[in-house]
């Protein structure tokens, strides 16, 4: 089954980390992604720019509204994701708990709706 691991964290806190901390985090993420790749489960993943760079679009009654900012303002924001393919939820959860973001924020595990 395919699962999307959505990594949530406080992007304000993230913006104020030192260079050394940032380097460490990057190294942790790259090791994590490499491990998933070697295990043959990784199908994709990316880091997202902070929500300040977000733009929200809605079309209602034929009129398009474009808003500056994220759809919902939350204390923690989605900062990245991984798409994995594993046997079942237990396997997905065990990958999620190894994600560096799980110790600084939360990782939401959501099954992909197979078409």
């Amino acid at each position, binding site marked *: 089954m395919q699962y999307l691991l959505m990594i949530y964290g406080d992007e304000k806190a993230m913006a104020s980390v030192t260079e050394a901390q940032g380097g460490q985090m990057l190294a942790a993420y790259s090791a994590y992604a490499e491990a998933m790749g070697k295990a043959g489960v990784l199908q994709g993943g990316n880091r997202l720019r902070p929500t300040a760079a977000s733009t929200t679009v809605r079309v209602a009654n034929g009129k398009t509204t474009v808003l500056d900012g994220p759809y919902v303002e939350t204390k923690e924001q989605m900062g990245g994701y991984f798409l994995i393919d594993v046997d*079942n*939820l237990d396997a997905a959860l065990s990958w999620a708990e190894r994600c560096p973001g799980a110790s600084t924020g939360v990782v939401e595990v959501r099954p992909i709706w197979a078409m």
Partner: protein
Amino acid sequence: MAVTGDPVRQATEAVARDSYGKLIAFLVARTGDMAGAEDALSDAFAAALADWPVSGIPDNPRGWLATVARRKQLDQFRRRRTRRDASDHLALLAQELTAVRPETSLVADERLALMFVCAHPAIDAGIRAPLMLRTVLGLDTPAIASAFLVAPATMGQRLVRAQSRIKVAGIPFRVPEAAELRGRLEDVLDAIYAAFAAGWSDPAGTEVRRRDLAAEAIWLGRLIVSLLPNEPEAAGVLALMLYAEARRATRRGTHGEYVSLADQDPSAWDHAMIGQAETLLRRAGAMGATGRFQLEAAIQSAHVVRRQTGRSDWVAIERLYAALESMTDSPVVTINRAVAIAETLGADAGLAVLDLVAGDKRVADYQPYWAARAGVLARAGDFAAADDAYRRAIGLEADPAVRQFLMRRQAEAASRASD
């Protein structure tokens, strides 16, 4: 449905009782679809009620039901897959169906995996016990709903949501590996104990359904002990349930009045059941890993020694509560330890321990705290304060029999206070 003779109905009921969980496990193991498995099995039972009066009860009723239910599952699968070319998968399924020999494939008991699915951490903790009762034992929704004091429609919705979640989220049908088994087993045992507690909370035994639920939970406990004989906490939870069940009849007097543990007549306890509990607890103790359920069972054991000595072993009880306290952060445990200390070291020492939790927000509306405090205060001779605490406890109690008991105690304290 055809008119059925009693022997046929009895035979199907007997199979249902003995092997519902086994059959569901057998069906879910192959598809991961719990709701579909239930539908297929209930179709198979309906087919049995129609067929058996005509053709006779088969030699292997369970195998018969398994085969028919498997075919129903295949039908479900066909219907669902019409829009897609799934011929490979279908061919495979058909092959398996013709090759399947239910009597041999059912030898492996898959109910353990089924219990781990029901108590999976991704399932809401509150629905785990109902889900287990439904899928492992085949209890119907109204029975489960009434035991958990929920409207049948609400319970039905929750069960359906949980079942669909198992399939959609991809919760695997498997027994966890050794490394995670103990942690996951805790959730299974908690769910079994929650089912027992739901049955136990009807002390008057007026609601047959809830009384039966305690028996069903004990049945689940026996099942898990037989499937995991080397897990001490499994034996612990079964022992705990048996100790409690053994005293069921003595919790109420002849007129339905509440009888506290201290006032229960030990000769009226179920001694055979206590014997089973003691054996289980000893066996669990020999396995070397202590846990919450073993400690709670051991406390029960220290209470039932009153059968021989005429007095609970309060020293042991105090020590066991202290061990439990280090394991949980529960004011309930501290309250119980305080009561034990009042017995071993005197009322003032007990009161000092109660004061430790007096500031905890959780005890402000917790009846047992106020009842315990009132009891200890009365022992200490502070009847005016005991009177106040009893009033508080009375105001927090929902069970009329317990309320009456507390009111008797309060009247005593009030009259001694004015002496």
